[in-house]
């Protein structure tokens, strides 16, 4: 594979939130986990641990928690007229109302109930040195790219662990120790066969708006 081919994998990826009910084969699950295992990690500590969840009841609980987390925030943002401003770019009033309802109801984050498999990505705070959150993010990215390279869709979901109270609930669902110094829950990754064709590519800022040369703010390439 050359550089352009790898870049093609990166640029064709998108977050998928609707999945076919078909299961993800064990071999593919193993490859996703293998990809995670090879992520960069500070001092090779490998603090990551993964919980593979296919049980429908557990996914329902996590889906409900995700819905609750997102919905509780967005309902109140709507009530203070902030969520409406966030989506005022949608011109069609009916469409905008539909999007807003989808957001504040929390349904936007409920989709893991339909994903055949989800991976909880957690970090052992007793093993990692100083880089646990960053190591976990690197592992997550590897998993996303591996899934995409195999034709699977995935979505990195933070909703159910965004607040500390919800993170504890999430840990309890999965039996993860809840002590101060035990485990960090990064989030989970929902994976399945894509059922949607989302508009792609999503708009991305041009490099000129994000790259500086030699010093902050210097946009001129020397």
């Amino acid at each position: 594979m050359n550089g352009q081919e790898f870049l093609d994998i990166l640029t064709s990826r998108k977050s998928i939130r609707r999945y076919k009910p078909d299961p993800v084969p064990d071999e593919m699950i193993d490859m996703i986990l293998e990809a995670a295992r090879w992520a960069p990690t500070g001092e090779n500590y490998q603090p990551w641990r993964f919980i593979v969840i296919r049980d429908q009841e557990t996914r329902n609980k996590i889906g409900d928690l995700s819905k609750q987390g997102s919905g509780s925030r967005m309902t109140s943002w709507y009530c203070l007229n902030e969520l409406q401003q966030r989506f005022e770019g949608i011109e069609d009033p009916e469409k905008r109302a539909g999007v807003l309802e989808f957001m504040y109801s929390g349904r936007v984050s409920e989709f893991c109930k339909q994903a055949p498999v989800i991976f909880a990505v957690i970090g052992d705070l007793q093993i990692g040195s100083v880089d646990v959150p960053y190591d976990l993010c690197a592992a997550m990215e590897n998993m996303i790219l591996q899934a995409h390279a195999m034709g699977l869709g995935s979505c990195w979901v933070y909703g159910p662990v965004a607040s500390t109270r919800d993170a504890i609930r999430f840990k309890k669902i999965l039996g993860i120790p809840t002590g101060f110094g035990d485990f960090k829950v990064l989030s989970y990754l929902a994976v399945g066969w894509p059922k949607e064709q989302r508009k792609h590519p999503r708009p991305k800022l041009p490099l000129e708006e994000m790259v500086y040369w030699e010093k902050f703010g210097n946009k001129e390439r020397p």
Partner: protein
Amino acid sequence: MDKTKYCNEVLARVEELMYQELSGMAYWKCEFVGVDFIRSHKIQGSTVPEIVESCAAVMKAEGIVSDVAYKTGGDGVMLKMTVQGCMHHGKEAHVKAEGVRPYICPIANMVLDQIHEKLKYTTSYLTKIAIDEERNRCLLYMALYETPDMIGHVTDWLKDDEDRKWLESQGSQILAAADRKKKE
């Protein structure tokens, strides 16, 4: 020694590093900051107003705040508190002066914690912390969800709110990028 000043300086430094690590997400992570104090007191009540009043009485008696006014609305989802003379006001002013929206309010956290502990609400969310330096007060808007079906129950919290105009001039959690663009 000014213990309040010392305490706020320490907290502000911790908030700085939290913000550097988590950016705006820090806002969602700090709901337990301050709750140990209120848990060590005997808060009583079987309704939201009773819990708020019980917490406020303790906080006033201990010198954490000088006054707390509150109102409920939004069919029971909204709790608004107006806090006067909070000992953490200096910390909030410092954070705000750095261009960061205040994101840790021990006062709100204490009240929400006791609503969870005593009334067993499904969930809650501290939606808005607005610091009014001129009047030495803070406005806090919180969402309370007694049952899961109240999530998604939307009303206009600001319809008859006397602070609406001032509040709309304050920063928003979710409009940061848009706010920046407007300034440019």
